[in-house]
């Protein structure tokens, strides 16, 4: 069963630091798996390095989380954000770094947070990304996946993943107005935005981690309402 749908309304503070670490590990694995695809998307309308840059950054995040695992969800996100800023470069380093850092700060030092709290924290993070990049919805950027994902997350993890994936695919017919693809003008039309695609991976990894946590709990027989 999908966590946060039936058993609770997503307001129980059930997500701990370990959940967040597993989320980012899953995101790193997804980025590594899809690095070539992200780079191909970037080659069409950018400069062919999105996959390799993010892969380098998320690998650094995984190393840092393994070496020094933080003990609060907020600290996991702020530390991961700082690592991305220091290791990715390009526009995606500051943008993803700001997303996670702002969300982490919103969560504070609570040892456990709820899905709805995470959605609200990510909403702040997405707002900070929009401000930093000077972009809005429909500009053919990562925001086109992240903004609907946040709305989805207020309902369920699965809804967030679906919304992010749909948002990323919906960037295909758009004309880029921000980032390097904007230099192409109309020639950016017909290609999926690589930043929206990687954002969908990040949110997909979140939903997968929630599903696995629910399954684990199910097997242990202590109920999916922990998640």
């Amino acid at each position: 069963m999908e966590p946060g749908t039936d058993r609770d309304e997503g307001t129980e503070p059930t997500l701990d630091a370990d959940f967040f670490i597993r989320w980012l590990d899953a995101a790193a694995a997804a980025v590594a798996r899809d690095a070539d695809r992200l780079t191909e998307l970037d080659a069409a309308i950018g400069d062919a390095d999105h996959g390799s840059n993010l892969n380098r950054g998320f690998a650094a995040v995984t190393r840092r989380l393994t070496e020094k695992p933080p003990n609060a969800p907020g600290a996991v996100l702020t530390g991961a954000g700082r690592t991305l800023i220091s290791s990715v470069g390009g526009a995606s380093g500051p943008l993803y770094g700001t997303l996670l850092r702002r969300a982490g700060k919103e969560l504070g030092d609570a040892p456990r947070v709820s899905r709805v709290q995470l959605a609200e924290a990510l909403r702040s993070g997405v707002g900070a990304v929009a401000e930093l990049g000077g972009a809005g919805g429909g500009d053919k950027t990562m925001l086109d996946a992240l903004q609907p994902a946040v709305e989805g997350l207020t309902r369920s993890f699965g809804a967030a993943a679906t919304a992010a994936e749909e948002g990323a695919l919906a960037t295909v017919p758009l004309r880029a107005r921000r980032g390097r693809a904007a230099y192409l003008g109309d020639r950016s039309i017909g290609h999926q935005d690589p930043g929206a695609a990687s954002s969908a991976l990040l949110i997909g990894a979140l939903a997968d981690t929630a599903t696995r946590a629910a399954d684990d709990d199910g097997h242990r027989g202590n109920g999916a309402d922990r998640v």
Partner: protein
Amino acid sequence: MKMLINVPERVVEDALRGMAAVHPELTVDVANRVVVRRDAPVANKVGLVSGGGSGHEPLHGGFVGPGMLDAACPGEVFTSPVPDQMVRAAAAVDSGEGVLFIVKNYTGDVLNFEMAAELAAEEGIRVETVTVSDDVALAAGEGSGRRGTGGTLFVERLAGAVAEAGAPLERVTEVARRVADSCRSFGVALAPCSTPARGGPTFDLPEGELELGIGIHGEPGRERRGMMTSGEIADATVDALVNDLRPDEPVLVLVNGMGATPLLELYGYASEVMRALGERSVVPARTLVGDYVTSLDMAGCSVTLCPVDEELLRLWETPVRTPALRWGA
């Protein structure tokens, strides 16, 4: 695609080790990716820091030295460096007179330098930033704005000259901004470049076609046409520049190779550019011909015009001593 490399992941590191090995006048921190002039911080002098993705050599590391930059921060190929590099560079070159960041207008560079400026300020370093956006292939004020390309050389050189003369940060910033606001560039690709990570071309450009209005990061340009002669390319380029700039002062001219265009072709092209400028009553004051702001192994060329008054021309003529630009010293 064959390349003169060991492994793609170490291309930037290997090049920095090369610079360290052959340029004793520079301090090259390979691990942290910062190139600094050996005598930094120079007492009573504003520090100039630039940086950007690698692949544009000699920009920026080749322009570190007296009369130009104090430090450069190379990122991965075509990827902005990270704020940590810029903060480290700023700390290394700040004599107490403050630091000027010279940034090419690409979203990644702008964001990372912005974060670095905040962090450096927290460490008590006075930082000003000047952004170069000189590429007339893009309409000004639309989307992310114009890209920073060849004009960066003129900003680094003229701001470097006035800083070397001991001008305060406000004055160095003013000169850099004036130059950044007034130079214009336009580039043409005959063949795309290949990044080491990808091992092949970043875009397709069929035989018999060229791409007008390219950037310097291997991104495609604005328009594609059937192959043109050197003279026709010069006319299209100079028209694009002069229609945008309409200079009434003499101009510094950069006839720049993108990396894989032979100097033989580039000098032939320079003669066409000089002709085209003359036909439009534009007076070249000084001209540079060569590979200065490249895009890996892209074949093609760009032209940059930088209007100069007597003061800027005098600054241009002062001594400069860097690996890639050097005279009077």
